[in-house]
């Protein structure tokens, strides 16, 4: 059978760009050289928050983009300076509000380094389980909203439906669905409850059938492929110079993942792969994130299989609260509890920077301790903030519709951008 170009059996045989003959990427000549500046945002469904994009258009071609941010700047870093170390954790969790475990992890790692505190092995593995569950949940919400921006509304319901399963697990272990405050300096707040393991295994099993469903919904959808393939390509060197990390960088084929490069919290014990793309277009970004979800499920499964016995938080009473039952019998435990709750623990003077791999790239936390019970400075190197600088490079000289797809695939979280 000879195939007609453009027939449904071979949808990509004639590139979409060639069929769209009315649209040209070249400057349109004397009579059409007028530039139009439009303001996208601050409130726009496709901006994933309160992001304002001052866009210069020539016809339908984006010639320049200026991201204007700060609309949800709430001074979280300033507020952190007025809180004891253990009370900072709920604050930093509200920065990048879709990956709250990662924010807490970066902060706790920095403080643990300053205290020179060892985290028990079981606590490290419990952290890995929750971090990877959070990565899956964050990517699910990204795929839900990202596909919605491109027009696939089914994916929104599917993604949010399945993210709820992960949130159920967070509720089970930490008592909250969002901003769980589960990670503490020195470990985690509580051991996982009975039944958590079975529910997590059921979640893994469900997700392993659901992710192929997403792919069958999107990966063979002609509209999806034409909107994502070949759009928003930025060369690897440019992304590296702009400091972009995470799935955006890995989509160009650079296998930079802090979990592999500088393992923390016991990631060296797990067998997982770092998915990379080849071209670095929006389609690769989509596939890299989908594959990352599958790898995260592998990590969770291994962590559940080999979860070591032992304490879930450091036995150092100067840092971690004593167990509740000791308060009734031990005066010393009561004193420690009182001191920790009223004054908090003191951190010796010094400063450090701890970086972890969040769903969006390198999430670093800089903490300056001045010897008191409150940090003198907490600064988050948020990946969304840095990655947003790549948006003008991605969108320049492309169609306005592709620009929306670029924002969706960039996945900025404005709570993290503005902090």
């Amino acid at each position, binding site marked *: 059978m000879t195939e007609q170009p453009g027939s449904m059996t071979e949808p990509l045989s004639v590139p979409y760009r060639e069929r769209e003959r009315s649209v040209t990427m070249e400057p349109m000549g004397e009579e059409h050289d007028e530039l139009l500046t439009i303001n996208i945002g601050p409130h726009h469904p496709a901006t994933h928050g309160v992001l304002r994009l001052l866009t210069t258009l020539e016809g339908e071609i984006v010639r320049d983009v200026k991201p204007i941010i*700060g609309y949800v700047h709430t001074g979280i870093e300033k507020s952190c300076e007025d809180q004891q170390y253990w009370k900072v954790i709920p604050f930093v969790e509200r920065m990048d509000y879709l990956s709250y475990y990662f924010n807490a992890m970066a902060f706790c790692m920095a403080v643990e380094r300053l205290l020179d505190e060892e985290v028990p092995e079981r606590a490290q593995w419990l952290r890995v389980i929750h971090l990877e569950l959070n990565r899956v949940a964050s990517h699910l919400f990204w795929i839900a909203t990202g596909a919605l921006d491109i027009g696939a509304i089914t994916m929104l319901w599917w993604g949010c439906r399945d993210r709820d399963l992960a949130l159920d697990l967070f509720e089970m272990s930490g008592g909250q669905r969002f901003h769980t405050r589960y990670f503490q300096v020195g470990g985690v707040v509580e051991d996982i409850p009975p039944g958590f393991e079975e529910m997590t295994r059921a979640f893994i099993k469900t997700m392993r059938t659901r992710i192929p469903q997403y792919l069958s919904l999107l990966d063979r959808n002609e509209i999806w492929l034409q909107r994502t393939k070949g759009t928003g390509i930025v060369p690897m060197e440019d992304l590296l110079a702009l400091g972009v*990390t995470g799935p955006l960088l890995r989509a160009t084929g650079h296998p930079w993942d802090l979990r592999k490069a500088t393992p923390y919290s016991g990631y060296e014990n797990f067998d997982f792969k770092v998915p990379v793309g080849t071209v670095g277009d929006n389609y690769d970004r989509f596939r890299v994130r989908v594959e990352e979800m599958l790898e995260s499920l592998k990590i969770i499964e291994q962590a559940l299989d080999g979860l070591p016995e032992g304490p879930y938080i450091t036995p150092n009473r100067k840092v971690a609260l004593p167990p509740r039952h000791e308060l009734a019998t031990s005066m010393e435990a009561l004193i420690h509890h009182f001191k920790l709750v009223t004054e908090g623990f003191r951190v010796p003077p010094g400063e450090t920077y701890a970086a972890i791999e969040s769903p969006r790239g390198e999430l670093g936390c800089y903490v300056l301790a001045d010897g008191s019970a409150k940090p003198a400075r907490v600064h988050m190197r948020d990946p969304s903030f840095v990655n*947003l*600088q790549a948006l003008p490079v991605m969108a320049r000289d492309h169609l306005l519709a592709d620009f929306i797809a670029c924002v969706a695939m960039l996945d900025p979280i404005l709570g993290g951008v503005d902090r």
Partner: protein
Amino acid sequence: MPDATGLELIAQRVREKVGDEAVTGTLYYRRHATLDVAPSSVRDVIAYLRDGEDEPWERLMSVHGVDYLPEEPRLGVHYELLSMERADRLNVRTRVGTDEPRVPSVVDLHPTADFQEREVFDMFGVVFDGHPDMRRILMPEDYEGYPQRRDFPMGGEPVIYTFNEPKLPRWYD
């Protein structure tokens, strides 16, 4: 992280290549290597570490601003350098006073510093000479003061509700 010896060797090479007064000190604390640099030679040192070293520090991951309030000079700017090949980090730190906080910009070396230097300017008032677009980034453009400085009060602005709005006419003037 380079260990304490490695840090001293780097400092020695920077002193030879960039200038004796460029490095003002080294600090190795909790596996975090810090190279203290004079404010005027920040750009030269980072350029040397990127291009001149045999083991280069080719990526800039983060720029932090800090206010060490009781100490002088008060403000600090940190540059977290990364070598992807060796998976290693080095912190370059410079200190400036509040009377004339000026640091040369590294945007031409590391374009990623664009937003981050603007954030440091916004929050601490450190001016980066040579930055193409030195404006506030998170705070409103007409905002006065540098909110992350330690002497900037918490809750320094009144919160406007319906009941106290008449009592605070044009509080922002």
